[in-house]
């Protein structure tokens, strides 16, 4: 209680030179603002990339593909039979082929649009794909109904005014592609499919490639689309194999728990396939982001240390100005420790003030940048992500704490100087 009362006296000290304290706190605020906005930028980028992985439950996935190059000739084929075997492995919840076809034309009345069609399992919801992935509607139903989930960027081109308006509507898909035959040649095929839109999805802006403006179709439907096997057939043919026995280019195996990843991956390799996991790429990416965040935080810390020197200067001035007052305090019973508490509190308060200002400044600057980039991107015909900066609570609290700690450390020298003031000398100065 006594220490708290002495700490409160520090506020009185700060009140006496408001301009100097404000300017010093402003220095801390600018440094904190830079620190928090730079780290928030790195975190925001990380979030933009990680969110789709989380939404699509990609971290439990193993990507399986046939062996390539010289080893491909006699390697096992990744066909439906192989997929069934993979699905039977302990710990595996689903296995499905990765089929992605460009140039699929969607027709709805007078509206047409080209898109990429992506195969997803009908049990996608059960595989942990997040609900927030959908803007409207639902996931695919089990069974064989010709259903589709439409990418939000396609809504406008197809004449839908809202995601809800698309639900239940019928789309005509036109697909054409090459089909491999026994004679090591390909024949051209063209096909029309009718699908019902059951859901509309959207992904963060940063997701690369054509997935965002895509059309998600059930695997069983995608298998009927011409060209579904073309890529793997060509690969097989190049390796001197039989194109008609090509199977799929790759398969996704979804395990129930990430802990099963290693074991299942080994079992798949033992079956003669090559594998990779999203988690391993994810971990590499995380290391990169940690490095980026630490680097940006270090740059911000340099600014904060410079601001700390400002605090040292301000408090040294305060010690000189209040030299006699320090003598009075000692004469009436203040100990050296009391004076250390007094000046460290002043330093900490400047840090707190600057830290709070910095958080506000960082938020304002990042918001301004987001708006400015959005406007600029709009002029360039692009769409910028709405929230590039991420301000988690731990970042805000941590920055504030860091500002206070740096300020208190900066206050140590002036506080010790105040504690060592000779009261007689100080009183004689009057």
């Amino acid at each position, binding site marked *: *209680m*006594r220490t708290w*009362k*002495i700490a409160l*006296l520090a506020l*009185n000290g700060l*009140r*006496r030179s408001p301009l100097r304290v404000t300017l010093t706190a402003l220095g801390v605020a600018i440094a904190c603002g830079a620190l928090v906005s730079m780290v928030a930028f790195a975190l925001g980028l990380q979030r933009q990339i990680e969110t789709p992985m989380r939404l699509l439950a990609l971290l439990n996935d193993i990507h399986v593909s046939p062996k390539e190059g010289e080893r491909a000739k006699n390697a096992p084929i990744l066909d439906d039979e192989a997929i069934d075997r993979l699905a039977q492995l302990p710990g595996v919840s689903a296995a499905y082929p990765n089929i992605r076809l460009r140039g699929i034309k969607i027709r709805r009345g007078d509206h047409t649009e080209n898109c990429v069609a992506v195969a997803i399992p009908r049990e996608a919801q059960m595989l942990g794909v997040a609900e927030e992935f959908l803007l409207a509607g639902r996931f695919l139903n089990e069974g064989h109904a010709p259903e589709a989930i439409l990418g939000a960027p396609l809504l406008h081109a197809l004449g839908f005014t809202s995601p809800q308006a698309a639900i239940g509507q019928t789309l005509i898909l036109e697909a054409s592609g090459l089909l491999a035959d026994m004679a090591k040649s390909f024949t051209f095929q063209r096909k029309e499919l009718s699908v019902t839109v059951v859901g509309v999805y959207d992904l963060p802006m940063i997701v690369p490639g054509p997935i965002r403006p895509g059309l998600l179709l059930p695997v069983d439907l995608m298998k009927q689309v011409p060209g579904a096997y073309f890529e793997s057939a060509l690969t097989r043919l190049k390796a001197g194999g039989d194109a008609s026995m090509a199977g799929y280019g790759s398969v996704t195996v979804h395990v129930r728990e990430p802990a099963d990843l290693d074991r299942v991956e080994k079992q798949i390799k033992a079956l003669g396939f090559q594998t990779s996991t999203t988690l391993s790429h994810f971990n590499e990416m995380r290391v990169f982001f940690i490095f980026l965040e630490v680097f940006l935080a270090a740059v911000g810390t340099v600014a904060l240390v410079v601001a700390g020197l400002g605090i040292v200067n301000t408090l040294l001035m305060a010690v000189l100005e209040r030299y*006699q*007052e320090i*003598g*009075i*305090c*000692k*004469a*009436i*019973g*203040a*100990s*050296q*420790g*009391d004076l250390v508490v007094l000046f460290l509190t002043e330093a900490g308060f400047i840090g707190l003030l600057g830290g709070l200002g910095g958080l506000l400044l960082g938020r304002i600057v990042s918001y301004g940048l987001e708006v400015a980039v959005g406007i600029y991107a709009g002029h360039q015909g692009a769409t910028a992500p709405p929230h590039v900066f991420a301000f988690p609570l731990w970042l805000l609290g941590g920055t504030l704490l860091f500002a206070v700690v740096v300020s208190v450390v900066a206050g140590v020298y002036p506080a010790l100087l105040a504690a060592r003031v000779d*009261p*007689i000398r100080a*009183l004689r100065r*009057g």
Partner: protein
Amino acid sequence: MTPGNENGYFVETSGLSRAYRVGPATVQALAGVDLQVRRGEFLAVLGVSGSGKSTLLHLLGGLDTPTGGSVRVDRRDLAGLNAYQRAIYRRTTVGFVFQSYYLVPSLTAEENVALALTFQGTVGAERSHRAAEAIARVGLERRAGHRPSQLSGGEQQRVAIARAIVHRPPLLLADEPTGNLDSATAAEVVSLLDTVHRELGATVVVVTHDEEIVRHAADRMVYLRDGQLVGEGGGRS
């Protein structure tokens, strides 16, 4: 000097010396002072400027440490105390009144008084109550909310006295408390010190160059010249 039983003295110095180095020279501010003050006594230490009066007061108050001899206050040897113990000693045992008042300019009269209590750990309502009581004792209730710059010299010294007595110290030390005041105000301040001395039963040591102003209040007067006690006289004439 008044002889007495060693255990009966509240303040006792023996061969007390204090030398300062000023460049290559050594200045002997006090040279072997033997002084005894009884508990509850009002002692005036008289001497011209530079005679060592303030140095003696600083040593008695634990603001300074002797270079020779000893100071015992309430049977406690101050020379054996470290910096923290001296702070505790000043906090609990001593009240200081200075010639230049030394009030904190940014605090009100009452806040200045309460400041001393803060360092003693008295907080909350008791702190406010005791500060108000001390302010009332020196007759400044109506000026409690004023800052030092809004008070006259006499009023500022009254605030300084309130600050010195707010924690009811057994030893009150006043260093030229009337040095900056006109004679009428000086007489009022000495009278106030005398009142406080009688009401609180504190031992008071006042150092001054003005014998006339303390003659009526002091129980005893001692004379200091060139750092040495050179004589003694009775007070309350």
